[in-house]
Structure formats: C-alpha cells, structure tokens
C-alpha cells in the first residue's frame, strides 16, 4: 500500500482552530505540501499577520513570524533582505491585504520583492465576526452591511490580481479557488509555481485563493462552496495574470 494523502511534514500535529468546513485548512495543507517538496532547497520562514490565520505559527512546522494587521509584506521584505536564500512567504486575508495593508502589498510588488504571498480572499472579515471587507460582493450581507453591500456607500470590491497586473513589479500573479477537487489541484499547481518563481529569484509572486467563510457567510460548508462558485467566480475570474515568461492566463 502506498500512502497517497497524509499530513505534510511542514505542518505540526496541532489541530486547526478553523471553523468546520473553512477552506483555510485546505490552503494551509497545500502550502505545506509545496514547501515539503522544496526539500533541501526550502528552509522557509512564514509570516502570518492578524486575521483568522494569525495562529498559523502554531500550524506550520517552520520558523514563523506573527505580524501586525496588514504589514506582512513589509515584514517579509525585512526578512528576505536579510535572508536572501531563504524561502519566505506571507499568508494574508483580504481585509488584511486589500484594506489596511494595501500600501504594503502594492509597494512590495512594485519593488519586486522576492517572496511569495498566499492571499486568501473570502470576501469578508472572518476573525472579527463577519464585517464588510474590501472584497465583499455588491449586495452581500455582512454584520456591517446588514442590507447588503451598497457600492454607493461602501465602494466596489477590489480585484487585487488585476490591480497588481497593471504594474511592472510582480513576476507571478494568479487567482485560483478551492471549491472543488479539480480546483484544489489547480490551486496547488499555482502555489508550486509561485514558490518556484521565488526559488529562481525571479521576483514577487502572489496567489490569490478564493476561499470560504461558512460561519460568517451564514451557509453550511457545502453551500459555501456553491456560493463561492456561483457568486465569487464571476467577479473574480480565475487564471494567471502575470508569469515570468509572459504567457498570461495560460491554464494551470
């Protein structure tokens, strides 16, 4: 018998605190599997700022840094500049990356900092109890948009990959999802690619992963995957927005 699915070495034995069915767990596993594959080439440092994944330092069996809300790209810059041969990644939510930390992510990308960003877009603020996020869809109800997001009042959702793709700094930008087995496999490939870009010192890489928040969406885990597919995909199209070779939007 051959083991085809087991806990990656780059994760500790600690059980995740994430809510039942929350896809943060799937994404953690994918990142850890890819880091496992780096093997000898992969002494890695992970940076998790505030958000549901702030406890990532409990889960990744790596040297880890907990950072303040939104600032992981700046922290990662400081780490990577001091340890240029170490694999460095941030793991950020959408409130973290696209609201409070927008300046840090844009400027890290503009500088072409050679680290990898795992950007978990669940269209809501999970940790603080389901408030509106910069990625919340028009009409989507949250605890601070109880009647649904009114774009006149709260503006329009931000498309991070598209935004960064207008600039010259980034080397790899990709949006993937985890709402089905096929998509999870694609997400894994994108994460692999991003870390490969970093290993080859090609520059800034970011993988935006559409993810669920069953608890704050008020849907069961399965319905959440369906909602993601039906509501989020049209607004956040999947694909590659930048590759080092220039063959954007190639299928993963």
């Amino acid at each position: 018998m051959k083991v085809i699915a087991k806990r990656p070495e780059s994760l500790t034995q600690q059980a995740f605190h994430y809510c039942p069915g929350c896809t943060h767990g799937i994404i953690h596993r994918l990142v850890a599997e890819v880091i496992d594959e780096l093997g000898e080439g992969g002494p890695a440092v992970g940076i998790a700022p505030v958000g549901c994944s702030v406890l990532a330092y409990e889960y990744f069996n790596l040297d880890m840094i907990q950072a303040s809300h939104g600032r992981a790209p700046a922290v990662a810059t400081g780490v990577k500049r001091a340890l240029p041969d170490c694999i460095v990644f941030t793991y950020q939510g959408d409130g973290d990356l696209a609201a409070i930390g927008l300046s840090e992510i844009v400027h890290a990308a503009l500088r072409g900092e050679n680290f990898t960003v795992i950007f978990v877009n669940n269209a809501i603020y999970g940790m603080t109890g389901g408030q509106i996020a910069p990625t919340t869809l028009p009409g989507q109800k949250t605890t601070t948009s109880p009647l649904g997001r009114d774009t006149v009042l709260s503006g329009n959702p931000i498309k991070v990959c598209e935004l960064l793709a207008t600039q010259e700094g980034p080397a790899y930008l990709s949006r993937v999802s985890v709402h089905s087995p096929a998509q999870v496999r694609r997400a894994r490939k994108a994460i692999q690619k991003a870390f490969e870009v970093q290993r080859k010192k090609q520059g800034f890489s970011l993988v935006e992963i559409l993810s669920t928040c069953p608890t704050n969406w008020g849907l069961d885990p399965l319905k959440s995957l369906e909602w993601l597919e039906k509501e989020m995909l049209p607004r956040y199209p999947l694909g590659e927005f930048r590759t080092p070779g220039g063959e954007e939007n190639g299928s993963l």
Partner: protein
Amino acid sequence: MKTRLMKGNEAVGEAAVSAGCRHYYGYPITPQNEIPEYLSYRMPEVGGVFIQSESEIAAINMVYGTSSTGARVMTSSSSPGISLKAEGISYLAGSELPAVIVNMMRGGPGLGGIQPAQGDYFQAVKGGGHGDYRVIVLAAASVQELYTFTLLAFDLADRYRNPVMLLGDGLLGQMMEEVEIPQDLGDDNPPGKPWAVTGCRGRGRNIINSLYLDPHKLEAHNRKLQEKYKGIMEREQRFQEHHTEDCELLLVAYGTAARVSRGAVDEARALGIKAGLFRPQTLWPFPNRGLKEAARRARALLVVEMSSGQMVEDVNLGVQCRLPVHFYGRMGGIVPSAGEVLEEIKRIEGGLA
C-alpha cells in the same frame, strides 16, 4: 583616537554602520533626512541594505522582519513619523525584538513645525504604542553623543532584546561638531541570537510572536517583560552632572535644553549663584538614583525643556515632591536662550533668599 567633523544626522548613520548595522529602512521627514540620505550610499558601500519605504509603518515593519532574523537594524524619523511607528514599536517590544529607532524631534502636535522641540518625551518614555511595554530611551546632547549613543543603542537592544529609541532634535541632527571616533565600538561579545528566525534546519523551530490568547499566558509574558524592565532600571540609568557637588539650585534638562542650561549654570556661577545641572542621558530608565544624589543639597529644582513640561513629572517623582520643582520651557520649535534660563534662575534664587 580619530576625530571627524560630522553633522549630527550623519554621525547617527555612520555609527550605525560601525555598530555592524547593515539594514536601514526609513521614510523621509525633516529634520532627519540626512540619515536616510547618508545611508542610501553608505549601506551599499558596506554590502548593506537601504530601503526608502512607502511609509513609516512599512519601515518599522521591515525593521520587525529584519530584526526577527537576528540582524542589526535601524530606522529613523521625526515626531509625526514616530507616531506612525508606534504600533510597530509595541509589537517589537511584545515580541522582544532588538531594534534602534531614532527620533529627531520637531514641534507638534499634528504637523507642528520642523524646528527642534522636545514634545515627544511622553511618547518616547511613557509608551506611545499600546500595552505595558518599555523602550530604552537615550537622549543625546551633542554630535559626539549621537555617535556613541547609536553604538550603545545597538548593544542595549541586543542585550535586552528590546527596542531602543535614540532621541535628538532638529538642532542636534543638523549641527556639525567634532566627533572622536572611539576605538571601542561596543560589546566585543554581543549575545548570540538563538531565538532568531532563519529558516530552521537542524534545530527546533523559532517563533516570533506577541499573541497570547490565554490571559494567564499573556500575564506570564507580561510578568517576564516587567522583570526584564526592572533589571534595565537597575543597571542602565545614565546621566551627567555639572557643578552638582554643592548646588542649591539644581537644573534638570536633557538634549539641547541641557546645552543651553549648562551655559546658564556657568553664568549663574559667575554671579555667585550655586547652580548645578543634572542631565539625564537615559530618559527611560529615568536616572532617579543620580537625581536624588545630585539634589541632596538643593533647595529647589528647575526643569528646562523644549515642551510644555513633560520630564518635569518624572523629576517630581524622582525627588518625591520633597523639593519645589520649577519649570521653564519654550515650545513650537523655539530653543530657549541661556539668558532666558539665567533670568529664571535669578528669579527662583531671589525667592529662596
């Protein structure tokens, strides 16, 4: 010993390089721009890293990242920029990361002005950021001290795994003085950093963290920090005295205000007034022991600051309100003259007579 004519801000930059600092992150703000300007060419010369960050918030978080790896790192700014760094400084303290933060103070509040001031004493000494933490605060009063205190700041930061703030002001940063470059550049044997995050290989993993969701663990962490702070208070009080042996009127001032006060004390002495000067070099820990000793013959104290009176509170605590503590200050970027301070000395002396 070598001597060099240096501008205050450049002295800070060069001393950082001498201290082995190879990472500097900062955002421009007057009156400290010569620090990033100097390091923008000096760092590459020594194989170091200079980044002009997108904001002070980014700069302090780059500092957080580099410090996590165990490398020496510095940022500098002036008053409004330090306000933006406050969250990061609290995180550095909470995660017990060494770092050197320079504040060349200017007038406030708000955008204030760009002239020298000392209105950030509370911010530097009492916190500025959230939570029960302390930052070691060194107050330089000359270009020489900007140099030597920069060296010292790196050593203290590493020794205590704690952020250290070097306070100057627009005047000290901009002026030129001769600096003796010391042979001894600091700790020969700085402490190792087994806690640093370097990508674990062949050792247990390291975590840089300030989050403790269990209140008992957070309290234990805080107790540990407080123990450390107690040790710092015990060991690191620094000050300088001028004519305190027999003084009846003790002036207390730091930084630029101390330079002015020293002149006023000398003029007062020439008039036969037994004045002396006590100059804290560490604002935290505040040199209480030295102050008590210096004030033992005094009948009154006069605190001189370029603010509305902030350190005066610590002086009152230091002498436990047993002596009258007078205050003279200017604000808005105005440096008091020795003559103004002398008038104040005479006024108080008159009351004592």
